[in-house]
């Protein structure tokens, strides 16, 4: 069933304009009366890693949650503008939100494995998405764990609690859990900020390996990290409590010759 919908999705979407899998136009987000993000135009190229950088509280995480409609769960959150993934308007009423979230995975700042065994952490979502065949699920689980480099570390203790893993392993497990659902887009909200430098390095290598297979959008406060992994960079800044997109472009261009004075100051470490 999973494979069917994926095929259907690619067939329906046709050729997305300019190879941009994710297209955001004139996006504004407000929580009640407070506008946290205004007038954002952003694209993320298929297979690229797009880094969203900027100071805290400028709406980067809110932007991520509009892409998988997790923002629906926040009461008082109003979104305006268009969000297209694979050419489809994800905000239209006839979108199956559960299917959307399967295709647009999300990784959080703090690793959040379920209090279940390592195997059940991956098994449960697969089953919920209608994969009834046990052997096929096991195969998917192994593939996903291998792709995050966790298989050899956990293959002998798949039935033990996922909470016993280290922070870095837990985060890789969460990535594997999302990958097992074969998403097209992976949203990562500061995926390394709770991890030590070595685990961070492992995760960064993993994201670089996944590049090309799926489209990744990474929120990060770590400029060095953005430099290391990002193909494209979008810089956000807050004015009067409202975040807006200041500059975007290929990573080397934004870091080497930023156009906007705000970006120049931030990238040089003089602000933010």
């Amino acid at each position, binding site marked *: 069933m999973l494979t069917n919908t994926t095929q259907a999705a690619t067939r329906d979407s046709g050729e997305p304009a300019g190879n941009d899998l994710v297209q955001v136009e004139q996006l504004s987000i407000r929580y009640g009366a407070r506008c946290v993000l205004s007038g954002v135009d952003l694209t993320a190229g298929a297979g690229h890693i797009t880094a969203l950088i900027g100071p805290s509280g400028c709406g980067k995480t809110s932007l991520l949650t509009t892409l998988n409609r997790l923002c629906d769960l926040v009461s008082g959150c109003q979104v305006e503008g268009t969000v297209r993934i694979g050419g489809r308007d994800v905000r239209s009423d006839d979108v199956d939100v559960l299917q*959307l979230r399967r295709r647009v995975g999300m990784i959080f700042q703090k690793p959040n494995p379920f209090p279940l065994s390592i195997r059940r952490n991956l098994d449960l979502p697969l089953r919920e998405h209608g994969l009834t065949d046990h052997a096929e699920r096991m195969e998917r689980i192994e593939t996903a764990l291998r792709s995050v480099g966790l298989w050899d570390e956990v293959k002998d203790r798949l039935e033990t609690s996922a909470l016993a893993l280290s922070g870095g392993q837990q985060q890789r497990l*969460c990535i594997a859990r999302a990958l097992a659902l074969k998403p097209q887009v992976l949203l990562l909200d500061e995926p390394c900020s709770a991890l030590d430098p070595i685990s961070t390095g492992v995760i960064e290598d993993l994201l670089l390996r996944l590049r090309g297979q799926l489209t990744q959008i990474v929120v990060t406060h770590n400029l060095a990290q953005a430099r290391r992994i990002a193909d494209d960079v979008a810089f956000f800044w807050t004015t009067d409590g409202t975040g807006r997109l200041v500059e975007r472009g290929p990573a080397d261009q934004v870091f080497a010759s930023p156009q906007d004075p705000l970006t120049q100051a931030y990238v040089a470490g003089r602000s933010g």
Partner: protein
Amino acid sequence: MTTTPGEPGLLDHANWTVRPSAAHRGLDRAVAVVVWSVAAAITLVFAWLVGSIVWRGAGEISWGYLTGPVLDAGRGGGIGPVLVSTLLILLVCLAVSVPLGLGTAILLAEFSPRQNRFGRLVRRSLDVLAGVPSIVFGLFGNAFFCVWLGMGFSIVSGGLTLACMVLPILIRATEEGFRSVPDEYRLAAAALGMSRTAAIRHLLLPAAVPGLVVGLVLGIGRALAETAALIFTSGYVTRMPESLWDSGRSLSIHIFDLSMNVAGGNDRAHAAALVLIVLLLALNGAASWMAHRWLHRQVMTA
């Protein structure tokens, strides 16, 4: 507290290893003595209570006592029918209150935000209900189940009345169980495209089991201890009940009757009280074991 060196401050830096003053030590000791003696007094009261029941009741307990019919208003024979009635009343009570309680708790914790008007109204009503004296529940049960619904004095009437009494406790404790589950599990499940039902069934319910068990323990305790409400509803017939529509006497009513209305029934009352306490402990243990075995086992902490 910081002081500049050389200047005499609140903390004398030269003498910081010196023992606390005698006054301080005296106060510490006094507080320790008070705290320990209060704890000891409470333990003593409990020990006395259990001790006296065991002391006076244990002699009567035998297989024949537990299974035999009630003879001579309880002075002779056993408590077989009473035990059966008690368990049946409890069964009816739990069969009704656990599913209802679980459903309401899920509604309150998962589907209505804390500030929600409807949720607040339900919660307020439950808190009021939990504080209503049991005799009022008895009158209500009698008027509603026995008379209005025509169930008469029966085990069903008694069980349903108890269910009304137990529900508020069960719901609030289970709701707390659900609320204590971290939001990140809900968020993680949603981000993986899992439906809310699936998240509740596979993650939240198992993780909320400790709360459910607290509710069950309190609920079973209240149901087994109940006397006043049952006099009006399940009656005090000592015959072995033939169906749920028969009247039946619960253990608590039996104890009350023996100690108040039957001359020379005091030792038998203590024996019945001992059975009641053991039954309570056994049922609580069983409820907690089953909940953990069936639900909580699915989740594993590190």
